[in-house]
């Protein structure tokens, strides 16, 4: 219809409509909703700057796990619903680092170092598996995540951990469901160069850490290998003809994604202050998936900007809805809104007509 109109006489409404079309209606609704929440916050008695700090804080905890989605989307493996596999590598790193007696900032560094080989090995196996079943990645990824989490539930009980801060007091074995990080790496990044102005506090260290990783990812995607990976995702046949080893690229992307998930959970823990074991990682993939989709990514296209915008919007809604809604209508509908908005976003992305992955 727009074509029939004189282009020079394009009204503001038309331009808005076009913008909505390119941006995606659900995304616009979510962004609008968040904006509304921010505007409403001071009127219902919630402190604006506390809200902003909370949102930024939660952003800093979760951003790296969302960043972990990027490589697999680029190589055409779809959304990484198998994120829990990487989270498990991170948890192994965290628990082993404490078990070996490291404390303070050193324990965080060691956790990353120990988690890395686990992430590489598990990522390799996972990547090998995904190469066998091209086209059905997302469903199988979901269930790989579930099986690995439930398998590790048994392992947390059986593995010979002894550190008294982690095992059940009376039995002397079997890890606790939540382990406090006090004295280990609690707030080790968040406390670094923290800025406090009144009610506003910014965890500079965590944000910097994310910025470094995000920049690294951006730079990597612009190297020769990174470009090849994107080529594999957008057109595997063409990539193969150009001499790119498709399977190797996909495997590399899966390893990267798994490793980032491992780092992501460690950063999450240092902000949150606790290690959560057993069934905790079970549904951790879904918030990360919907965050990147809210940020404007599709099943086969994602940028760093999508990660930043998406995580901010998603975490903004998660933190703002409980306080604002509670004060406004005295009903805690935040859970429902969160579920409907995030799952609705995933559904929207899955039903878009994109070129089916091969």
């Amino acid at each position, binding site marked *: 219809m727009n074509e029939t109109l004189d282009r020079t006489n394009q009204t503001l409404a038309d331009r808005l409509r076009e913008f909505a079309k390119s941006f995606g209606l659900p995304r616009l609704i979510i962004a609008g909703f968040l904006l509304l929440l921010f505007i409403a916050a001071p009127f219902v008695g919630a402190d604006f700057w506390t809200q902003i700090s909370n949102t930024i804080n939660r952003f800093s905890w979760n951003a790296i796990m969302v960043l972990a989605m990027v490589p697999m989307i680029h190589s055409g493996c779809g959304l990484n*619903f198998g994120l829990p596999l990487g989270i498990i590598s991170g948890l192994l790193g965290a628990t082993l680092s404490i078990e070996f007696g490291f404390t303070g900032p050193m324990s965080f560094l060691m956790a990353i170092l120990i988690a890395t080989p686990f992430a590489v090995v598990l990522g390799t196996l996972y990547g090998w*598996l995904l190469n*066998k*079943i*091209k*086209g*059905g990645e*997302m*469903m*199988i990824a*979901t*269930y*790989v995540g*579930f*099986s690995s989490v*439930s*398998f590790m*539930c*048994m392992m947390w*009980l*059986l593995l010979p951990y002894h550190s008294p801060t982690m095992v059940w007091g009376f039995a002397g074995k*079997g890890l606790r469901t939540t382990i406090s990080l006090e004295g280990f790496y609690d707030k080790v990044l968040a406390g670094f160069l923290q800025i406090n102005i009144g009610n506003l506090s910014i965890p500079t260290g965590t944000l910097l850490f994310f910025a470094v990783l995000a920049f690294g990812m951006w730079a990597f995607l612009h190297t020769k290998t990174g470009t090849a990976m994107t080529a594999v995702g957008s057109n595997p046949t063409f990539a193969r003809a150009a001499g790119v080893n498709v399977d190797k690229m996909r495997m590399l992307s899966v390893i990267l994604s798994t490793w980032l998930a491992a780092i992501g959970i460690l950063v999450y823990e240092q902000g949150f202050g606790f290690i959560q074991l057993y069934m905790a990682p079970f549904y951790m993939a*879904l918030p990360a998936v919907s965050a990147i989709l809210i940020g404007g990514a599709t099943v086969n296209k994602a940028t760093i900007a999508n990660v930043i915008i998406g995580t901010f919007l998603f975490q903004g809604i998660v933190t703002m809805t409980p306080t604002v809604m509670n004060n406004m209508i005295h*009903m805690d*509908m935040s*859970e*429902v809104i969160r*579920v*409907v908005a995030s*799952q*609705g976003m*995933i*559904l929207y992305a*899955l*039903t878009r*007509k994109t070129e*089916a992955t091969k």
Partner: protein
Amino acid sequence: MKKDNKIFTFLRDNSVPIMFVIICAVCIPVSGFSYSYLLNEIVTRMGRNIFLILALLIPIMSGMGLNFGMTLGAMAGEIALILVSDWQIWGIPGVVLAMILSIPISILLGAFCGKILNMAKGREMITSYIISFFMNGIYQLVVLYMMGSIIPIKHFSVKLPRGYGIRNTVSLLNMRQCLDNLLAVRVGGVKIPVLTFMIIGVLCVFIVWFRKTKLGQDMRAVGQDMNVARDAGINVERTRIISIVMSTVLAGFGMVIYLQNMGNIATYSSHSQIGMFCIAALLVGGASVDKASIGNVFLGVILFHTMFIVAPKAGAQITGDSMIGEYFRVFVSYAVITVALIMYETKKRKHKSAAAQQLQAAQNEEAAK
């Protein structure tokens, strides 16, 4: 030589059931349960679960894979039961009324699910899986906020004290096992719920008959190849929606049967695991993503639930920790689904590449001429 091949093929095609027979064979003696207790438990669980699992067969027939969206039917069944128990209609009339009430809700949800799945062809399973999460949000909105405030709910035993929303558990004590106990027969200490099994039998006959009808044939054609079916004049989209609607309605009935056996509704969690356990049971019975029979359902229920009953006790005996067995059975449920999905996808790829090779060979021949 040929015979060896046959045995090998048999083993490969039935690897999952055989593995489960072995697990059960090891765990049953270790757990130390008496056989009459085990038999009783399994018969009860058969009556409870088979109807739900049969609901999965129709979407498999029409090529839509494992219907993770059967959770929607379970939600419809729960909403119907909540309403019926609020109206204080108990016993058989209550069960029948709940089934009737669940139909319109199931049709609505099923049509919604089918519409969305038509927009996401080729990734039905992950989409139906996310739909079940999405609908869980809507379900909470309806049950926790709208019931009592918009939808009239009177009875204090159902409603939360704050005036709206449904309690965490709704007791169905006056409805408990009323289907199972009617016409129940005791054979050597084992209670057999004859009426429930008769209902299941009717559904089995219906499914066998349905496969032969025009609609059933259409569904199989759509499942084989959507494009060919479309060329043959079948309305593919409509057929797929009907198959999901049927599955959802059956799942709604199945949930009513399941809950009358359990005797209470865990309002916010009963439905969440149902899809997973039913699918795992079906796959344990030797079904795959594109092929499942009634036999698979029965075998699957027996093997899966035997494992489910004995695993915690056996795990406790072996490792001295009862939680190990609990986690073990959850792990097995997920692992079975994972393995089945992987086998299906590899098989699909193999077929695809075989077809491509054939085409290549044919083209080469053409070129040689």
